[in-house]
């Protein structure tokens, strides 16, 4: 069954990026627990892929986790600048550290800073006052279905890595010991 859904996106205007990485900083601060208590760009769900001498500045925000490496490793030349395929890809995948928690290795995904009360715009957009990041909303008809939350995305990655049985056993053991 199809339902109307608000689609939230961030338009990236690479020519306006000044490479300051404020988006990385504020993203990690927003997602810290307690909120804003710490920051660490390595935990960010947005990354500026930079190669300053080649004039490459591409802010990319994290999309879905993919459990398999992709086949492509091609290079693309746009306006005389050479980009690797990962420069555009929004997925966290087994072959790169991008969009993974530095401690656990679990995948990170952009949640558009959904919070209660809701933010007017995602924090990276608010902090990019050079307008390289533009928040957009539109309505679309989509198939009804549950979107995966953070925990589920992480669990899925763990299941891919260790197998369902091992994860289930571990969860059982942890819940047992935490009861004691």
């Amino acid at each position, binding site marked *: 069954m199809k339902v109307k859904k608000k689609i939230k996106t961030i338009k990236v205007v690479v020519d306006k990026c000044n490479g300051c990485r*404020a988006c990385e900083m504020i993203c990690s601060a927003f997602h810290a627990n307690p909120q804003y208590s710490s920051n660490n760009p390595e935990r960010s769900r947005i990354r500026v892929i930079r*190669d*300053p001498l080649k004039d490459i500045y591409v802010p990319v925000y994290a999309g879905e986790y993919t459990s398999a490496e992709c086949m492509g490793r091609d290079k693309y030349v746009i306006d005389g600048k050479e980009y690797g395929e990962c420069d555009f890809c929004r997925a966290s995948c087994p072959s790169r550290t991008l969009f993974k928690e530095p401690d656990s290795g679990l995948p990170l995904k952009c949640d558009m800073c959904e919070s209660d009360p809701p933010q007017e715009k995602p924090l990276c957009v608010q902090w990019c006052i050079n307008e390289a990041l533009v928040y957009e909303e539109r309505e679309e008809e989509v198939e009804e279905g549950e979107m995966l939350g953070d925990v589920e995305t992480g669990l899925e990655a763990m299941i891919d890595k260790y197998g369902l049985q091992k994860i289930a056993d571990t969860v059982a053991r942890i819940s047992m010991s935490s009861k004691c």
Partner: protein
Amino acid sequence: MRYAETGFNLEVDLSRGSVDRVETDPGLTELHLGGLGTNARLLWDRVPADADPFSPENLLIFGTGLLCGTPAPGANRTIVTTLSPQTRLMAFSMMGGFFAPELKYAGYDKVVIRGRSPKLVYLWINNDKVEIRDASHLQGKGAGETAELLRQELKEPKAQVVSIGLAGENRVYYASIEQGRSSASRGGVGAVMGDKGLKAIVVRGTKDINVADPAKFMSLANDVLKYIQFRATNPIPGVPAILSGLGSPQEMAIHDESWHTENFAWGNARTRRKGFWTEEVEKTWRETQENARKRLISCYNCPMKCGATVSVPNTPVYMMKCYSKLTYTMAAMSDLEFGFQIAQKATEYGVDAFSAPQTMAFAVELYEAGILTDQNMPGFPTDNKERFYWLLDKIVRREGIGDILANGTYWAAQQIGKGAEAYAHNNIKKHEQLPLKLGMLNPIYFLMYSTGEKIGITQIEGQFPQAPFNTKEEREEFVKDWFQVPDEKFKQYFLDWEPRGENSNPYYPTVGMSCEIVDWMEKMHYIDDALGVCAGLSSFPLKPPYHMHNYPLFISAATGMDIDEAELSQIARRNRTLVRAINSRRGLRRADEKPPEDHWKKRFPELEEQLRDEYYKFKGWNSQGIPTKESLHELAMDFVGEDLERRGIIKNEG
């Protein structure tokens, strides 16, 4: 848990090849904050007063500011502190970029380098893993080239690198430390790095930086961002365009260079070219800049765009900031394209873009005056541009005359003799200054030039307008929203300041007012340098987003220390006094504190002495400019007073 800072320094002894992670004393943060403050404290505590800058016992400290790595916009400065080979005093050099936050995320507030490596090495800091590695394959490589090679070698594209070029390796007195898009240039910090046998420091960090009161801190940081946006659409009226906004001068964004090219002196800081900026020049220079500039770029977590990626024909791409765009052009009496081209080479060699072109122009002048001859300079080209390339190569290699010129104009003039001293006419404390030749003495600037220890005038000024406004209405308009003043009296000083008549330079602002104004400006710089906040968002522009009233709130929310304006003021004073004491101990006296003889056409010897006297008193220094025991006691630095007394630098006044 330590907030804002990591609480750990990395201590590296290159003689022994040892690396230690050392927990720091939180009490020192309360006394000095961090950055420059605690750097100065390390220098005072650990470097012998008579140490040679080129000796294993000299320290080379890379300090991050207290707020670096927190969400505070523009908090990204690395403060490099050591003894300068050129001034023989404390070197005072800082850079923006990305190194300081990365170091914090790796878990360190400072990297303290001591000793000297027998062979060229680099330091690889990867969170807790720190290694001293062989760098013999990088010998002679450019600073930027080195950074790229190391990122590839270590397979760490996200690592941040500080490095030296050939000038640093060869201990050129004005060698810089480069960081891709920024550099620590003044005072010869790159020469000390070269003397230690350290080619580069590479850092990669993936840890957290915590703040004590997150909600309060974020609300303050958001206010700063909002104010930056407000100022972008509301430039300050009544001042030249270059002074109406925020950030460091937007040299890479603006095309109109009438102000610099007509007011600053060309060549060896001598030739004013009034009427230089014609339509034709403007057209050519605009085209050159538009073609060369690829992108306006920023330092970490800062929306200002003070730098640019530059690409000119037949020259590798590089990044440039601020005024180095003009320094080579004007020293060589040349065009902008030449400036962009030679700056690439100079940046790779790693030289200070103030001192290097001035020293080269000085050599050309000596040659034209017959003091240097073809005997000293065999094969010296006739074309001025080629001469500059020739000199640059000789200097960074310390070949022939270059070996002497590599020591800067002051020392080179002494070595050359034959009247060359008269040509080294633009130094303060043995260091090349802005090429400015002005008319009437300005009392505020007289004090800043004379007593500043940062060896660069633009690093002291900023909060008070450089000149009076023409009409009372304009002045009234200016003070209306001037909430940054630490005290209302400054508004009145400005309102009463007239371009002509009784209330004009040199006797107005009065001696007393001048002391207070300079002290305020200087204080803000010392706070920025302890916090690691860029002066471009604070102490340098008029009406900035960071000021005396919100800084204590920032510091309290970041660290959990409870601090008010009076206490912050006292810390700034303590840091400033400590820097002075380090230099007093190394022989700095009143006689050293004077601007060049020809800096202003109209001088006022009596007034100048009075200004110095009063400012020293105001600062708690004696008539030689040395901190008194009483003032050191007030600042909880009795140990400094006792040391100065023991050495006979101050007398036992008790």
